[in-house]
């Protein structure tokens, strides 16, 4: 498939990235090219094959229910561009 303008606008919306109008063409061209490349996967016979998420065949390790972290508010907020009174701050959210 080719990446059309609508598709680009949609994924830019989903990923919350500002996309100037004059850049859209470049993205559709390059991504359509990549999609053609990706679609060679259609040649593979995947009948009866289970998807593989991880190469590891391990048990999920479990943590004990203990409080081992916290009370590091200085570290937590150290890099915050906007903060106040131990809170992160963002423009007003309208719900």
């Amino acid at each position: 498939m080719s990446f059309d303008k609508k598709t680009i606008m949609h994924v830019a919306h989903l990923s919350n990235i500002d996309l100037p109008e004059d850049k859209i063409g470049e993205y559709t061209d390059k991504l359509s090219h990549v999609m053609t490349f990706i679609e060679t996967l259609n040649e593979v016979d995947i009948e009866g094959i289970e998807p593989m998420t991880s190469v590891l065949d391990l048990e999920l390790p479990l943590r004990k229910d203990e409080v081992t972290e916290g009370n590091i508010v200085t570290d937590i907020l150290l890099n915050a561009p906007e903060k106040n009174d131990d809170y992160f701050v963002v423009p007003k959210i309208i719900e």
Partner: protein
Amino acid sequence: MTALTDLSLTDAQRLLKNGDISAVELVKAYLKAIEDAAILNCYVTICQDKAIEQAKQSDLRLSQGNARPLEGIPIGVKDVFCTKNVETTACSKILKGFIPPYESTVTQKLWDAGAIMLGKLNHDEFAMGSSTEYSCFGPVISPVRKNGETTAHVAGGSSGGSSASVAARLCLAATATDTGGSIRQPASLTGTVGIKPTYGLCSRYGIVAFASSLDQAGIITHTVEDSAAMLTQMVGYDHKDSTSLATTTPEYHTHLSKDVSQLRVGIPKEYTSSDMLPAIQRMWEETADMLAHQGAKIVEVSLPHTHYALPTYYVVALAEASSNLARYDGIRYGNNISNSTQLIQRYRENRAQFGEEVKRRIFLGTFVLSAKYYDAYYIKAQKVRRLIRDDFNTAFEKVDVLLTPTTSGAAFALGEKLDDPVAMYLNDLFTVPVNMAGLPAISFPMGKDSAGLPLGMQLIGKPLGEQTILNTAYFLEDARGKIPKLHPWWLNNTSKGM
């Protein structure tokens, strides 16, 4: 006498232990070399004071006889490893100024072993790229050039700062990460040694994530022995990483052996292609001959789904990346450039700081995960991934290691492949299948093309087969013979005008 920066890591260790050189001397020599090689753009942060302070501590320990395994060894760190109180940017505008209040497990292990951080190394933004041209700090210039030419070449990627800094002798070793070839391809292009261990052997804790199911830390060094010494200190179970392998690992460097007489070496036939450089084809055959000559058995094997590894990789890696990079919004940390009073606009403006390649990958990853296309792309890729892994399992029933070239070509000129993402992706053709299957692999220099650019060979091991590939590379490195020192052309170009 050899310049301090010409020593191998293992040599430096010996001289430090004997008191022939001091850690402070060594660190200062490297800091000077880094300064003189500014044009290569390898380092994005230099930790001068901290490094000298650490070196003094190392000298004290060395003099007191309680030196640790890597005491006083100056190294560079790829800027995706979070380093406590030292800016970590992933070479992205969005993380400029980020000071982690924590240390990655791998680097912590290295500091605990006595290594010294010279600084943070350049790479493709969020480790996405094959040429280190996609960094917000500008491209890395390879210390390697064609014979008699001055055209700037790429040092490979994404760990281009790591490979270039080792090749130009700006550190004894450099940490790196490998998601689809980001350690091995740059090592190959710069004539250095790069090893990516089995998935899960090095903790991912504190490493800026690209694709979680593929990312793995490793090391780039001058020699195989150096890689073995470094890797020994980097691996190990970490309870902070749910995908960490709980396994005991040997001291790789003390178990090194050049005996390959019992080795069964697989040559995957799908890795040959008509457009492969004759020099690479020849090097591949010669390398196999060297092994056969020592009694190793050379076997042709088949990895039938090789051709599909790259498209599979792009679907899987970009899907994961699109989600892993969702946290970068300039709200809790990172660079906020938005004055908007609209929350959504703040997200959109801040996240527009990602470079073009990163944006392309996020868009593509978002697309393949979207409800309508999930089965057609993501699930399909997950299935093909299993087939690729099964191919390797089958091959490893017959052989102990696989031998392939690391890349299908030598280093290319800066800017050459920037306009064609697929051409850039094809750089990783021989390295990507390894990540899909989570296997260990090493790249080491074995030859040169007609213009004198280095070419690397790759050895792929079974899961946890690090010792075997290190040993084989150790033998081949010796059989190959010494590589002449690079001519430091960059020293003439340190003027500020550049």
